[in-house]
């Protein structure tokens, strides 16, 4: 029988060990862990959507879903195996709680724009290197001009983009009509503040800076 329970942030390392079998790893180095935790623990409300566009390295996502009782804990033990619902890129048709099948970069934000057209609140998580994919910018331009105010993009900036973003990531969104904020990607109160900041009728991007 599936084990659904609710655990806390302190329980995440144990869940990550169940996923990977790696007890030596410094889990704080996972760039998305704190942001996804804060989203599920403090930000997302009933009816909101969370789309993980950056489908790479989804262990933090699975751990948070399991901690929040959205994913059966025992599924963590078979991560990546043939019969497992949890793979190295998430599949919404296999994994309970997962709302988007992703892994190829640059797909989440355009889909989130489609969701936001209906007025639904949607949060889409991307990586700074993922922004190199041109499809993201089609969505950034469109969402800004159409003032899709229910859309929030979160860019995890761990400086992994080869060519970087001279002038910063936030200003590029602002030029297209978005509002932007930043937060320390490890500071839960800062993340919560940035993700729940009052809106001004425009889409919003939060750039969370994480030291590589």
């Amino acid at each position, binding site marked *: 029988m599936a084990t659904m329970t609710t655990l806390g942030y302190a329980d995440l390392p144990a869940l990550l060990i169940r996923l990977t079998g790696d007890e030596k790893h410094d889990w704080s180095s996972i760039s998305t862990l704190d942001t996804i935790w804060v989203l599920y623990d403090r930000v997302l409300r009933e009816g909101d*959507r969370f789309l993980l566009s950056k489908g790479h390295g989804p262990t933090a996502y699975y751990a948070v879903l399991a901690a929040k009782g959205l994913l059966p804990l025992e599924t963590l033990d078979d991560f990546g195996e043939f019969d497992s619902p949890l793979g190295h890129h998430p*599949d*919404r*048709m296999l994994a309970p709680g997962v*709302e*988007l*099948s992703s892994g*190829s970069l*640059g*797909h989440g*934000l*355009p*889909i*989130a*724009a*489609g*969701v*936001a*057209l*209906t007025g*639904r609140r949607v949060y889409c998580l991307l990586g700074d290197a993922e922004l190199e994919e*041109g*499809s993201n910018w*089609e*969505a950034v*331009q*469109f969402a800004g001009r159409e003032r899709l105010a229910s859309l929030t993009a979160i860019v995890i900036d761990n400086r992994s983009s080869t060519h970087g973003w001279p002038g910063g990531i936030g200003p590029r969104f602002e030029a297209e009509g978005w509002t932007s904020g930043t937060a320390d990607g490890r500071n839960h109160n800062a993340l919560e503040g940035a993700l729940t900041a009052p809106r001004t009728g425009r889409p919003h991007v939060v750039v969370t800076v994480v030291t590589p």
Partner: protein
Amino acid sequence: MMRQRFYELLREALDEDERVVAVTAEIGTAQIGSHPRHVNVGIREQLLIGVAAGLALEGRRPVAHSYAPFLVERPYEQIKLDLGHNDLGAVLVSTGASYDAASEGRTHQAPEDVAALAALPGWTIHVPGHPHELEHLFRAALRTDDRVYIRLSEEQNHARVDGGGFTVLRRGGTAAPLVLAVGPSLAPTLVATASLDVTVAYLATVRPFPHAALREALGDGDAVVLVEPYLAGTSSAEISEALVDRPHRLLALGVPNVEFRRYGTGPDHRSAHGLDAAGIRASLEGFLRRNPQRAGAGA
């Protein structure tokens, strides 16, 4: 004309069905006109499909429309993943077909669109040959949540074929070759096969392919001629599958897989590819001559 009929049908659907959302990328935008549920995403075709997927995620019925190369080929991975892998439905309606815009050059020609979409699982693919068929197919597509592609062309047949599926229009002898015309290929095929002892059948819905109907129509025959208005051989594997246990011969006519650097008109291209009545007739006679005991010019 099918394209104009599509715009009328889409406007009606927007007025009648709150689930329907039209998504365009500048092409067809003005003809569809302003409506609260018509979204023009600009010249951004990856976004066109992504937005359609997001709308489907919210229970809407998106109808995405553009020129065939920009609707199917440019955002091919979005079609594969945003719709297919995420198991979300949409109705994609293209115009331009293989060579409607012949004078625009290769960039606006998409003879490979059906083969490309048919390589992805779960797509229903319609190639209507007449505006009345489009009406039936489009309305049926809106009633489902399936992934449906409707390929419109300026080429069309003189009359509609009712029934939707595989339809035998003319019956030859019990062992006569079967000539299967897809969509707007029917008009030249009917001319090309006049006076030949062949069975002529029509098909507007090429995926899923009607294997059983093809077997039945072939009767005791062993020769199949497939006339498709797009890449030659697009449905050859389907016919092989339908006849897997029967020795058979297949002639697959269509647009050849070559980099065809010509402008001109659609009829120029149809003729150059051997897809006008004379070209089909010549190919057919050559094919049948190689099997004289089973077919040939009738009395």
